[in-house]
């Protein structure tokens, strides 16, 4: 058995090593596997070496039946396996894995648009420079996946190990078949909670960011999708995990449609190389949101009255397209959907997947949703309304993303985006300015 391919670049609990106890002991004896303490103490405070948790509230004591003492375990990463203080982490220390040499790994025979091609060339150039970082600022609907193909082709030719990390499991599930078709001879695996494709030996790993908890110094090329998205942006452990999973010499590529402040500041200071893809793959500009003010909007919604602006909009528009309405809270989503006889969907909805699928198949005409559909989903022909756009959940990134749901298909490259608000916020203005900037850049190309 090829232990190197199975274990190299991993950081595992003893229960996660897919081998017999005797084999593990053999590998330990021959120094091919080494043990690392799982929970260390710094200034008397515990620190989890697996997820980086240092919050004392997220450590608890357990009277352990394995070692007959009471010690701490980490509650922060318990969902991906429990780290006991008495159970060391295992790291591969043997030879590096080798991957099959391929001359022409890529079977994708589509063509890139000039804008995509420019970005693809930039990525190819950067992967030869160790420790290089590049952010790809590409508008919603630019066709980011295809842009990666040339660089991944080159990385595979160089027998590099590649990771594509994304915040959401849906995206992993969607990407795997596309990459399998493009690179049929490459060892590939998809990692998300309960994923059936965990072989543990992929050269190309497509993973949710959380699953990278089992990797250490594994990848030569780390591609992080939607670096601005909620869990990555919000959770301190995730940037740590992606950093640890990369080798010290690794190249990092970040993909985003709406970079956060800190990245934009770095771009401005020229500390982070950037490549713009300001135009969608079909070549049409992004729809610019229209603002519509409505007085007493919050009160009206709270008292379960219809918003006049929304009613007017619904009556005046041609019903050729479907309508997607965003509302800030689950409570409002449900109220509004009842007012207009529409279907509602939110994160805790058990029929979430089913409803979104039906909307995609045009079986539902109007869908009212929370921000869960703000990114990553493509509907061919929709108009978009944000009701109560002044709410803090609709920050600049969210508004740009939501506006980016309209006009996705080349057959109907426009769509209306309406923000109904009770007072303009900075987020709305910044979002509109960002969209206009991208359209300007797109025109100049």
């Amino acid at each position, binding site marked *: 058995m090829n232990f190197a391919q199975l274990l190299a670049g991993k950081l595992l609990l003893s229960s996660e090593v897919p081998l017999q106890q005797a084999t593990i002991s053999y590998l330990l004896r021959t120094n091919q596997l080494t043990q690392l303490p799982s929970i260390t103490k710094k200034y008397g405070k515990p620190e989890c070496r697996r997820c980086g948790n240092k919050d004392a509230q997220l450590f608890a004591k*357990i009277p352990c*039946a394995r070692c007959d003492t009471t010690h701490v*375990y980490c509650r922060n990463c*318990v969902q991906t*396996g429990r780290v006991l203080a008495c159970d060391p982490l295992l790291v591969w220390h043997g030879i590096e894995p080798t991957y099959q040499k391929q001359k022409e790994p890529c079977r994708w025979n589509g063509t890139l648009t000039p804008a995509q091609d420019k970005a693809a060339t930039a990525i190819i150039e950067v992967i030869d420079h160790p420790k290089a970082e590049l952010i790809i600022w590409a508008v919603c609907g630019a066709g980011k996946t295809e842009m990666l193909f040339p660089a991944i082709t080159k990385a595979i030719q160089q027998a590099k190990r590649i990771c594509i990390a994304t915040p959401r499991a849906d995206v992993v599930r969607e990407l795997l078949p596309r990459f399998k078709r493009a690179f049929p001879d490459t060892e590939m695996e998809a990692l998300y909670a309960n994923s059936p494709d965990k072989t543990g030996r992929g050269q190309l790993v497509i993973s949710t960011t959380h699953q990278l908890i089992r990797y250490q110094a594994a990848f030569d090329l780390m591609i992080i999708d939607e670096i601005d998205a909620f869990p990555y942006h919000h959770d301190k452990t995730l940037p740590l995990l992606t950093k640890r999973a990369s080798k010290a010499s690794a190249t990092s590529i970040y993909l985003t449609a709406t970079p956060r402040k800190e990245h934009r500041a770095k771009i401005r200071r020229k500390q982070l190389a950037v490549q713009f893809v300001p135009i969608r793959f079909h070549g049409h500009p992004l729809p610019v949101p229209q603002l519509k003010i409505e007085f007493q909007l919050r009160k009206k919604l709270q008292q379960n009255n219809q918003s006049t602006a929304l009613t007017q909009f619904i009556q005046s528009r041609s019903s050729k397209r479907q309508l997607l309405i965003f509302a800030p809270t689950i409570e409002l989503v449900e109220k509004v959907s009842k007012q207009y006889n529409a279907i509602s969907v939110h994160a805790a909805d058990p029929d979430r997947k089913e409803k979104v699928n039906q909307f995609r198949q045009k079986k539902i005409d109007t869908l009212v949703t929370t921000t869960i559909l703000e990114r990553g989903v493509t509907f061919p022909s929709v108009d978009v309304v944000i009701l109560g756009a002044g709410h803090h959940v609709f920050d600049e990134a969210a508004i740009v993303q939501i506006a980016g749901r309209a006009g996705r298909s080349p057959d109907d490259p426009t769509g209306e985006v309406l923000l109904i608000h009770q007072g303009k916020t900075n987020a709305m203005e910044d979002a509109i300015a960002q969209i206009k900037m991208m359209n300007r850049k797109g025109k100049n190309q």
Partner: protein
Amino acid sequence: MSKCLKCQAEIEQQVTWSTFLLPPEPANLCDDCESQLSVIQAPICRRCGKPHTEGELCGDCKGWKDDDIHCEVLACNRSLFTYSAFIQAIIAQWKYRGDYQLKEIFFPFIKSSLQSFYPLKELTIVPIPLSEERLYERGFNQALAIAEIVAENYHIPIEQVLSRKENHGEKQSKKSRNQRLAAKNPFFLSKTLETNVLIVDDIYTTGMTIHHAARLLKEAGCPSVYSFTLVR
């Protein structure tokens, strides 16, 4: 500020006169999670403690009454929660993921309700044991963890007199109802007890595990055998 044990949300403590004057009882769950706990309320089946409206005994217990070997072994069972998706998620995280601290969720419920269930003073607690292998894997016995909470609150002793025979390590939750009912008694007694006994486990599904244990204890001379589980 404490965090919800289940969802990690911050718990907001309501300010009332009692929390203003006395140190507040530390809350374990946020209001949202707390409201999802399906606490069992009367009317219940007189024997197994399952929510049940028509007649004294539920369908399961009528079945047990017709069973010659097991009809008299168990005096009664009482449980705290009905089996819902939410409690299932808590138990899974606690027992299978091994998040030991979640036992604190059950503290207030055990503290407030057990007195009305049993004549507690004369009881000895006997937790359902795990196989060696399973105990190593989980790091703790969930039944013993519950037993310790009961013992602490009511000052009654725990005696681990039951042991599991080898080759019976299979998880109950992986078996069908009929498979469970047909299974042989997986336990043996390492010591006899002469007091009344309270068997403690996490889940009562068909009741087979508890009836196996109760039968052994009863045959060995315990006058009455009761049982307590978190979930029914």
